[in-house]
């Protein structure tokens, strides 16, 4: 990117969800790869910030509900079927994860399942999608929910034992991850910079070896344009579930 944009670009890994939002709000970061919920939280707290792109897979994102086979949970046909999870030991992923918590909790609520309905009156928060698979596969939690892409990649890598853990329901599609840029980039780096940044991202293609490597790490074929209205639904649900105030 540094080469394409002609400015020094520095990668700063921040692994805590709220820390990333704070870092963006305080303008310590100029461009961030956000999850759906954290992206909305950051944008609402940072005047002028813009959604510039997402992956091709992000406009049709899904979460999968999984269950341990010994729990006797079977495939669910409609959203109301989620009611069978009442009284089960259930785990989400991270507290701020869109696919591991927010959207699943929304569908659970829609089906009439409150988080206090799970065994022990509280759900678990495994901390990551991979951990959710491990904990459900072990049987410690009878069911859980995670990002569909992580489930698929674990299946491909042979890390899932299908006799122990199965998918019981896939959520409808929703918009998830996206690139969020500060609103003052044009002012700082010259007119049209944000557009140039956007085009650089959109121009990534698998024919160029370096870019292929990056796209593969993102599990994407390419980046596509996006805008904030794609995330109106997440904002509404975030407010409803009190993750956005």
């Amino acid at each position, binding site marked *: 990117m540094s080469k394409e944009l002609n400015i020094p670009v520095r990668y*700063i*890994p*921040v*692994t*805590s*969800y*709220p*820390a990333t*939002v*704070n*870092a963006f*709000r*305080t*303008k*310590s*970061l100029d461009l961030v790869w956000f999850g759906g919920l954290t992206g909305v*939280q950051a944008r609402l*707290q940072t005047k002028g910030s813009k959604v510039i792109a997402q992956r091709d897979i992000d406009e049709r994102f899904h979460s999968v509900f999984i269950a*341990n086979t010994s729990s006797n949970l079977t495939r669910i046909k409609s959203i109301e079927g989620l009611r069978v999870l009442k009284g089960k*030991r259930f*785990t989400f992923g991270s*507290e*701020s994860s869109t696919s591991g918590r927010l959207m699943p909790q929304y569908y659970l609520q829609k089906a009439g399942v409150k988080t206090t309905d799970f065994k*022990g009156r*509280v*759900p*678990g*928060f*495994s*901390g*990551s999608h*991979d*951990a959710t698979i*491990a*904990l459900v*596969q*072990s*049987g*410690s*939690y009878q069911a859980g929910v995670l990002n569909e892409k992580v489930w698929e990649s674990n299946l491909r890598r042979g890390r899932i034992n299908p006799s*122990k853990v199965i998918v019981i329901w896939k959520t409808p599609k929703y918009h998830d991850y996206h690139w969020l840029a500060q609103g003052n980039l044009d002012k700082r780096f010259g007119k049209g910079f944000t557009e140039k940044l956007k085009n650089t991202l959109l121009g990534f293609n698998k024919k160029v070896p370096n870019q292929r490597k990056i796209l593969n790490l993102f599990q994407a074929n390419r980046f596509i344009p996006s805008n904030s209205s794609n995330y109106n639904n997440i904002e509404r649900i975030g407010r409803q579930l*009190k*993750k*956005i*105030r």
Partner: protein
Amino acid sequence: MKKIYLNHTTLTFFPSLAIIPVFIAFLRESHSGGFEIVSDFFIAIIYPSFNHVVIESAWRGLQVTLCTALLSWIFSTSIGIMLAVISSNVFWKAFDIDESVGVFIRRCLAIPRAIHELVWGLLLQAFLGLSPLIAILAISIPYTAIVSRVLSDQFDSISQDNLIAIKQTGSRPLSTFITASINKMIPIIINYGGYRLECSLRSATLLGVFGLGGIGTELQLSFQSLEFREMWTSFWMLGLLMLGLENIIALFRNKFLSKATLSWKSLRNLIITLFVIFIFSLTWLRVLDINLFTDISWHHITIPSVIDFWQASLELEWIRLITGTLLLTFLSAGIAIGIPPITMMLVPTRLGIKLQSCLWTFLRLIPAPISAMILLLCSSPSIAVAALALGIHNLGVMGRLLKEGIDQQNNNLFNAIQASGANSNSTWLYAKLTVQSRSYLAYAAYRMDVLLRETAVVGLVGGVGLGWQLQESLSSFYWAQVILVIITFISMTIIGETISDRFSRYLLNSKSPIGIALKP
């Protein structure tokens, strides 16, 4: 009528009662479903990744973490010592000023102490932006307050008679205080200060999440994707560093304390050494391309209104949150405090103690969220799993403190009791533990503080208590709720401290042991 006497030594064993319910609950819910993953975790210990990318990035991370730890350690111990002086009762007594000034300062210092360093990190970052300095501040603020509490208690344990005697010679208040305390306090400060470096290293690891990088980031990323072999590459490096530092400090401590009297020259050398380490760490961070002083500016958050606070308080299930937090704190404290004296008494041989010491290093090395995950793969979620995860991590710390105390004790009493023909277990109990029990219990009280804050990091087991609630409120940027939960933590810390102060004063003042009457 028989009487059971509660003295310091019996009190040391008292917390171990918590082990029984925790183990029963854990075993009752245990299963073998996680066997494969748990065995992968343990196999990875002897089979870490040697991929050069993994090693290179862990090596860089280790250097960043070490520098962060050294800087926070120097900040927190030096400021902590100063605050310890002014928050001790004996200091004010030397000036003939009411000791309540000291008590007041001590209670104020409960505020920074009540907040976990990870939470301090998030709060500071919300106001100051992302900067490597945040990690150092986030560790230094609570650590300064911890050091000052521990050392002020030690200042206060100085014999009052000495102070009065020196004062009657007509010496000035400040010199009275220094003369009365310096010889007793220097060894304590050196011992305790050395131990704080390892604590700083552990916290600097945990704080890798703030864009500073560091080995914590490597650990977290490999743990999140369950890449245990990569994770163990980082753990091995961190473990070796921990052991290395422990040995360097022990060497230094023995050299420094071996002299019969402490000279001003050796004190001056100590200060110069610390200053050199300080400059060296700053420069090293620069070499690693980390500039501590960039990008700091003040950013506001909207201050919540009274209505916001009221609304936020209605949304919280106070009774469940507070009882959950207390239960988790007591159970985990029982494990952490109760187990080391028992195992050391049962196996007091040289080899036995060595093996236990290795096990404790291992337990300290593994952060509580990771042990929680491993335990949770073996047993269904319950408060017992959370208590066990927190308990065994802190057990590693308590074990180390007990062993260190005992190592520095002279052997006269031990030899005398052994010569009387007592077996090795009772010799250890009467000659070693009895002598250490008072200071061990004091450390136990401080550990309760730590555990109360650490309840924040085991949300994985099912949101238990206030610690988890704080994470949830922080990730929702619900500042009114964040402030309310923090105030609750502070109040609980102050109440806990007041109770433990009263209790230790009661123990100190009671001429005869406290008796509980039991019917035969």
